């Protein structure tokens, strides 16, 4: 069968002809889905939120101004590890215009974790989330730890007050390397966690006798690798506004990605009040990428507002953001893989040493997801995974796009290429042979894959990058083209595959609800609670709603971001919004549709089954000239002068123990300057198993953006921490380098649409995934070009040159 596929690379046996994968050529790579079948779904419609963003009218947190509002600023620690002997706030308090100065003595004595997403864990799992911090610290555990806060009439006064706070520190020995932190005698960062071990996580799906399986394998490969602390670097710096209302309730405005869970955390873990006492409003979000799965400055704003009795806005500078509480978690990993001569994987082992930094935050769940994704993409009879999470005096980490997957994939995908090389197999064929498919267990093993278009993704991606012509082969043994010829500039291609959840069912509470209200003019108010952080969710949900009811896209208005109005939802993460909230919206839409049809049947004197709705009009299927407008039905339902009046509404829900994984293949072509070590990416191709692209323009843009962040992760982005002081040295965009408009290479996006039965119109997730395959495919391309492997990210020219210098030279290979 594989031979047949070779001859017919566009054909996919699994698609069953239900939909055709679509692709196009050079950028802007555009794939358009099946036309005709739907009226809204699958169309590149402009999103409802963007016109306000184009005119400057959109209100982000920093733009919010309330009557009498004060400005709050935070004093951070200059030391990585220090006891606070005393804090003298008297001068600051005496300054005219200062309303409050608070320290650890003023904060609730409830410990919490910043990860508000953790509230979605089942209670037994939540126990594993270390409750290890207060709003303001009683001891400095990293440079940037929060020591005191001020509320004042304006920023000028607030910052002057910060300068007047006198803190007496006693510096303590600090530790910045997770391996050092584990050694006996290392400084202890948290009293409750001896040896700095913040947690140990065993992969729940480990199975088989690892040692025996490896001993029995024909080959064993091992690869060690380490990712960088990539920053989310959302352009909007963190901000929150809080106000205690006269009735004693609290309103919080912030860009948090999980409004409902943030409300719960704030109520129960920090303030000790009821959830109903809090109204959480999500502002327009200037990028999230996982940082906003944690509390930022919200708790400080809430406390300052409480103490002053005034609304308070707290914000941070870019420098503070870089030195703060969220970056990708640094994970040092080892993958060992056993294979047979014939190229079948016999065992995979993953060991992770994860540097949480000063507080636990997301480091546990990230390690768990890393193992699920990394150990879950390939079929293997024996699997072993274990993560050790360590406290250090580095800044705290958080969720960052991909949530463990880009960390693990960088290591796994290089190990896969090494295994393929041992077997003398094309790494593409090796992946096809060993990757899981429909009917097999997903990354969360109790769940069975109901769809998987990975093979199509690999085939199409390979075609677009020119894999057959460009991949050099492993050398003489394969009889392929041979290594990249000598000379200064060497080209190579590399690939990587991944799977990622669409939703969190199985490991996290997976529950979303939506409300639809049909107004008298036939327009619809859709109330949902995802956070629109740029991913285009409001548009996608409107499309699903319109399609589900047979209304026009422009008839749907979304109300979002207010926990007083919207029903429960676990938040925007885990690439779940379109999939999970979309299902809830579709559920509600279908109910509204049924009600409309029922009322229409009465008017048209037929049965609801004989009717359909399109473009806001109900018609008789057998005789489309017989119609009644949805508006007429809606109006009649409200302005009913008898006793049958009822404003048509519905609530829909999504709840699942599954999460419908999506798949993706990425291919890079690079050129390496062997004299400077500079890697130039000539082209990146990403083929994604989207199930159904509800809005192809949005999906493409999302994958382009993911590729952009992946390229930075691979090549330039690096949070560099001074190894003596623990200070973040790259605390601005001047030193933390993200690619500019001049650096972005060609990225081709291919959307493969093989609908999954569980998603709305077959859709699966995409949000986080675009980032994952970039670095590993570049790493493998680097080997194809120069026969070197880089073990840590980013793959800087400095590292490339060092690896080239250390590489063994073969006669036909005059490497620099």
């Amino acid at each position, binding site marked *: 069968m594989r031979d047949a596929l070779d001859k017919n690379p566009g054909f996919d046996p699994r698609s069953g002809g239900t939909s055709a994968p679509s692709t196009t050529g050079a950028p802007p790579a555009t794939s358009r889905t099946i036309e005709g079948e739907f009226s809204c779904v699958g169309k590149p419609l402009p999103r409802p939120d963007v*016109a306000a963003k184009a005119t400057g009218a959109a209100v982000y947190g920093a733009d919010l101004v309330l009557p009498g509002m004060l400005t709050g600023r935070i004093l951070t620690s200059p030391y990585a590890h220090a006891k606070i002997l005393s804090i003298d706030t008297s001068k600051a308090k005496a300054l005219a215009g200062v309303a409050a100065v608070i320290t650890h003595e003023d904060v609730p004595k409830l410990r919490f974790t910043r990860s508000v997403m953790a509230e979605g864990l089942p209670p037994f799992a939540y126990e594993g989330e270390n409750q290890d911090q207060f709003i303001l610290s009683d001891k400095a555990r990293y440079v940037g730890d929060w020591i005191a806060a001020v509320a004042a009439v304006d920023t000028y006064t607030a910052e002057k007050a910060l300068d007047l706070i006198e803190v007496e520190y006693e510096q303590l020995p600090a530790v910045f390397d997770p391996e050092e932190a584990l050694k006996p005698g290392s400084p202890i960062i948290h009293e409750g966690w001896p040896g700095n071990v913040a947690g140990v996580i065993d992969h729940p799906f480990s199975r088989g006798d690892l040692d025996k399986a490896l001993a029995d394998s024909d080959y064993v490969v091992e690869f060690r690798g380490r990712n960088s602390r990539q920053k989310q670097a959302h352009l*909007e710096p963190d901000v929150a506004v809080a106000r205690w209302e006269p009735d004693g309730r609290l309103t919080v405005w912030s860009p948090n990605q999980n409004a409902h869970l943030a409300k719960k955390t704030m109520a129960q873990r920090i303030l000790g009040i009821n959830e109903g006492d809090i109204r959480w409003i999500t502002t327009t979000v200037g*990028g999230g990428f996982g940082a906003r799965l944690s509390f930022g400055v919200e708790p400080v704003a809430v406390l300052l507002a409480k103490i002053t009795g005034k609304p308070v806005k707290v914000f941070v500078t870019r420098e503070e953001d870089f030195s703060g509480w969220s970056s990708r978690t640094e994970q040092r990993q080892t993958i060992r893989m056993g294979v047979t001569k014939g190229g079948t994987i016999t065992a995979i082992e993953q060991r992770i040493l994860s540097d949480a930094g000063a507080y636990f935050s997301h480091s546990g769940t990230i390690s768990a997801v890393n193992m699920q994704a990394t150990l879950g993409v390939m079929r293997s009879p024996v699997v072993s995974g274990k993560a050790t999470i360590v406290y250090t005096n580095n800044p705290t980490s958080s969720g960052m796009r991909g949530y463990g997957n880009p960390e693990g994939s960088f290591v796994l995908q290089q190990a896969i290429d090494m295994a393929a090389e041992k077997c003398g197999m094309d790494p593409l064929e090796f992946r096809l042979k060993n990757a899981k498919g429909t009917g097999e267990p997903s990354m969360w093993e109790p769940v069975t894959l109901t769809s998987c278009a990975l093979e199509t993704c690999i085939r199409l991606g390979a075609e677009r990058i020119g894999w057959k012509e460009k991949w050099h082969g492993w050398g003489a043994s394969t009889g392929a083209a041979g290594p990249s010829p000598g000379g200064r500039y060497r080209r190579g291609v590399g690939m990587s595959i991944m799977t990622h959840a669409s939703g969190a069912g199985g490991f996290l509470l997976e529950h979303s609800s939506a409300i639809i209200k049909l107004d008298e003019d036939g327009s619809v108010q859709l109330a949902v609670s995802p956070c629109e952080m740029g991913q285009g969710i409001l548009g996608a949900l409107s499309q699903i709603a319109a399609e589900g009811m047979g209304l026009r896209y422009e008839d749907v208005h979304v109300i979002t971001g207010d926990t007083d109005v919207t029903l429960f939802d676990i938040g925007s993460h885990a690439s779940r919004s379109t999939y999970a909230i979309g299902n809830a919206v579709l559920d509600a839409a279908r109910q509204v549709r049924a009600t409309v049809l029922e009322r229409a049947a009465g008017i048209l004197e037929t049965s609801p089954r004989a009717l359909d709705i399109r473009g806001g009009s109900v018609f008789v299927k057998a005789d489309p000239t017989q119609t009644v407008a949805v508006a007429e039905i809606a109006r009649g339902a409200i302005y009913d002068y008898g006793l049958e009046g009822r404003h048509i509404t519905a609530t829909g829900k999504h709840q699942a123990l599954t999460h419908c994984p999506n798949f993706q293949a990425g291919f890079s072509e690079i050129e390496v300057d062997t004299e400077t070590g500079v890697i130039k990416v000539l082209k990146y191709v990403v083929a994604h198993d989207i199930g159904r692209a509800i809005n192809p323009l949005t999906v493409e843009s999302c994958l382009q953006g993911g590729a952009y962040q992946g390229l930075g992760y691979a090549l330039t982005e690096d949070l560099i921490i001074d190894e003596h002081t623990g200070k973040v040295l790259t605390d601005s965009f001047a030193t933390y380098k*993200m690619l500019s*408009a001049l650096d972005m290479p060609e990225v081709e996006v291919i959307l493969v649409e093989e609908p999954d039965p569980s998603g709305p119109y077959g859709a699966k997730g995409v949000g986080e995934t675009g980032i994952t395959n970039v670095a590993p495919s570049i790493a493998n391309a680097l080997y194809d070009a120069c026969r070197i492997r880089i073990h840590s990210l980013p793959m800087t020219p400095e590292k490339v040159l060092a690896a080239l210098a250390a590489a063994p030279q073969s006669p036909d290979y005059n490497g620099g």
Partner: protein
Amino acid sequence: MTKQIAAFTVNGAEREAIIEPHMLLIDVLRDQFALTGTKYACGTGDCGACTVLLDGKPSLSCLILAVTAIGKSILTIEGLAEGPELHPLQQSFVDEGAIQCGFCTPGMILSAKSLLDENPDPSLDEIRHALAGNLCRCTGYVAIFNAVQAAAAAMKTDSTGTEARP
């Protein structure tokens, strides 16, 4: 301190603000004129989110003392559209999917405007250069390049009344 009443031409209108020398232009625009479309994202000149057109030229309002902008003409994103219609650049950013979170968008659009003012028919390379000082964390820029090209084409059609070159 040396407070003064200062006059600026903001989006075509004469506006006055009470300023002190240490106030940054971005803060006067946002706090005193409530023009919050101008975004603060870095304060180091690296991201371009705070870009405004100062006497027509793209300038970083986070690195300009308001006192040095007295008497000058300032265009912010709020002043771009005439009336309720979107400016062609705003429309093309909407249509081409060039906006995700939108935080970079005002600065990006103003940089693009200054490019098109000087060069109505820019090449892709010229667009990349013109936007090199504006970071976008979300889109990967490609859709933004498309939007600038689309706007250039639309503006040519507008001004000549004839079909633009494809």
